[in-house]
């Protein structure tokens, strides 16, 4: 086990970064977020040319047979670009749910020919996997509602866990209602099934699926934090006030030094979570990285001054992503509460309240 990046991971990072620099600059993301956030052309290129959609799928099922380490690096880059592509929702969450069933759909997902979404609230956690879901299965048909589903807007097929079983429903057979979302680049939707035709795919350990999602989300949060820190560093070196670059003032320098330390620790926590996606590693990575991403994004906005409050500067996309992903797959408080029993720090039962 290592906390460093392998050569293969660095090569993958370089390919993804180059493609995103070309196809997904922040200005392009801002331009499209209000009309059609999901960039499915970009997604097809990422899936087809770099093969990111099949990273977690074994070779014999049509994937690349890679692991969480490689998926983590892709997410760092997607986070740095707030790229509106369904990697986390389709290639991680939906794919991981489907993997134990070895369903033939995996091959289509790996190639990027089809895109899936896990019909589970993005606000559910490994500790409360059912939060936001009320769906029942009757005679091969599903009825009920799931709120806050991420990636549903871009999905061809919905994977729905009901009572430990996983069902596949064509998106056209469900009603997907996307209202405005805090995160413009990864909107959530309400998914309603009304006796929708469903195919039983196999058993589903939803908590385990959400735990791997949470492990990998820490890498995306790292990427978001890295972009915010680097962009802010660039800005405070350029921006002059009182006849000096604002970055020469100790009040600014010390805040950035502290943020850098937070990011350094977030990198270690994220790599630990992909190297060993155990319950403790994942809870630590989420409890730490979710807060770091929000903190760095908030500081980035403040240190950009008035420009940080404008629609045309991309920092708001990152703040919205950071704040939403702080809640996604368990809040930092949910993950800390889980650690209490995982690492033997019991609460005050019977003690003074």
């Amino acid at each position: 086990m290592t906390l460093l990046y392998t050569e293969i991971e660095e090569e993958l990072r370089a390919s993804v970064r180059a493609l995103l620099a070309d196809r997904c600059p922040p200005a392009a993301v801002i331009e499209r977020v209000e009309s059609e956030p999901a960039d499915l052309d970009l997604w097809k290129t990422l899936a087809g040319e770099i093969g990111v959609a099949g990273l977690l799928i074994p070779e014999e099922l049509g994937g690349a047979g890679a692991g969480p380490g490689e998926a983590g690096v892709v997410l760092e880059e997607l986070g740095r670009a707030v790229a509106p592509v369904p990697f986390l929702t389709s290639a991680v969450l939906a794919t991981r749910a489907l993997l134990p069933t070895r369903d033939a759909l995996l091959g289509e997902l790996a190639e990027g020919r089809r895109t899936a979404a896990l019909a589970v609230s993005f606000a559910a956690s490994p500790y409360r996997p059912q939060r936001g879901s009320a769906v029942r299965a009757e005679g091969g048909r599903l009825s009920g509602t799931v709120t806050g589903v991420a990636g549903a807007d871009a999905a061809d097929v919905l994977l729905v866990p009901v009572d430990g079983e996983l069902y596949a429903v064509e998106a056209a057979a469900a009603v997907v209602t996307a209202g405005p979302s805090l995160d413009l680049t990864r909107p959530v939707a309400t998914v309603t099934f009304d006796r929708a035709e469903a195919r039983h795919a196999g058993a589903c350990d939803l908590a385990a699926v959400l735990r791997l999602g949470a492990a990998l989300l820490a890498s995306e949060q790292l990427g978001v934090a890295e972009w915010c820190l680097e962009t802010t560093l660039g800005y405070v070196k350029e921006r002059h006030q009182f006849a000096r670059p604002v970055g020469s003032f100790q009040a600014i320098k010390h805040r950035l030094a502290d943020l850098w330390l937070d990011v350094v620790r977030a990198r270690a926590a994220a790599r630990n979570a992909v190297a060993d996606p155990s319950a403790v590693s994942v809870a630590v990575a989420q409890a730490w990285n979710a807060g770091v991403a929000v903190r760095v994004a908030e500081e980035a906005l403040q240190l950009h001054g008035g420009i940080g409050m404008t629609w045309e500067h991309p920092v708001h996309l990152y703040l919205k992503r950071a704040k939403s992903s702080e809640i996604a797959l368990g809040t930092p408080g949910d993950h800390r509460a889980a650690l209490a029993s995982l690492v033997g720090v019991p609460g005050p039962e019977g003690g003074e309240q």
Partner: protein
Amino acid sequence: MNEADIKQRVAEFLAGHDPAGDRLEFLRARFDAGLAWVWFPEGLGGLGASRELQQVVERELADTPQINGGKQGIGLGMAAPTILAFGTEEQKRRFLRPLWTGEEIWCQLFSEPGAGSDLATLATRAVRDGDEWVVDGQKVWTSGAHHARWAILVTRTDPEVPKHRGLTYFVCDMNAPGVEVRPLRQITGEAEFNEVFLTGVRLSDDLRLGEVGDGWRVAQTTLMNERVAIGGAPTRRGGGVMAAVLDAWRERPELRTHDLHQRLLSLWVEAEATRLSGARLREQLAAGQPGPEGSGMKLSFAKLNQALTGFDVEFNRDLGYDDWTFRRSEDVDFFGRGPGYRYLRAKGNSIEGGTSEILRNIVAERVLGLPSEPRVDKDVPWKDLPR
């Protein structure tokens, strides 16, 4: 040289030296066998091997007589790497062996009443007199000076040039006439620090470390090693000060509250993220990719230590203190004392070895590339600086 080679060396050494015999003889022999610090050169206590292999030696020799890492901390962590980098062959042979065995303890004569964070403004003078230097001045915050045989000392040898350029580095003989050590009682009640008065102290020129006027560069080596020594120690998950807090937490369920529980879990997460970044840094160093992350370790360590020790006092709800007796401590006894001592002593973590403010400046300027603040004293001769 790999792990197997090192293990063989240790086995050969143990075959010839009985750990149950004389402690000092055993340590001397270990030094001579190159098993003191394996990354040092041969003949100087090492084998010219990779630094990572030291842990193999420590593991293999765990049940043999050990050096006192606390009392010898300054010698091992700061004096030794500086002597290795800047000493003459003669100096290295003279000083490193008794330093490592603990026969000679070292202290560090750096800070002065008027020169702490701005160390380069120091005023202790060294004036050349033939083959000797005559030193006059006052140093402060000198840990362990009361049992030190030698000191690393920075002095001003040229007041006519700007502050960083007129400094020269020496090894100071703490037994020399004119060296006076006075205890400085601390907020913990004990005196681990001292003031050291240097009055007409004569040091021969062969005690000089590095070139005349090059003292700042030599001191940078010392300070860099000091920060790594303070912040770089590996810990296990839930170890270090956290372990002491967790022990208390598990033993006293009646003192737990919801508020303290939430705060402890937050600190646990921060400690674990910090531990992981230390582990990652060591992996980087072992892979030959030294990153800038090391600069931040002491900062994280100080902040965490202070938060944890403060938490511990609050959790224990004990308004007492273990011992205010004035005494001359041997070293920092973080785990042999009570929560009150740990809380008070940890306040020094963000001051000693570079204040957290100075370390943030270093991170901001050297790691993040931010511009420095205007320096009004940059080209002014030291003697003309306002004081």
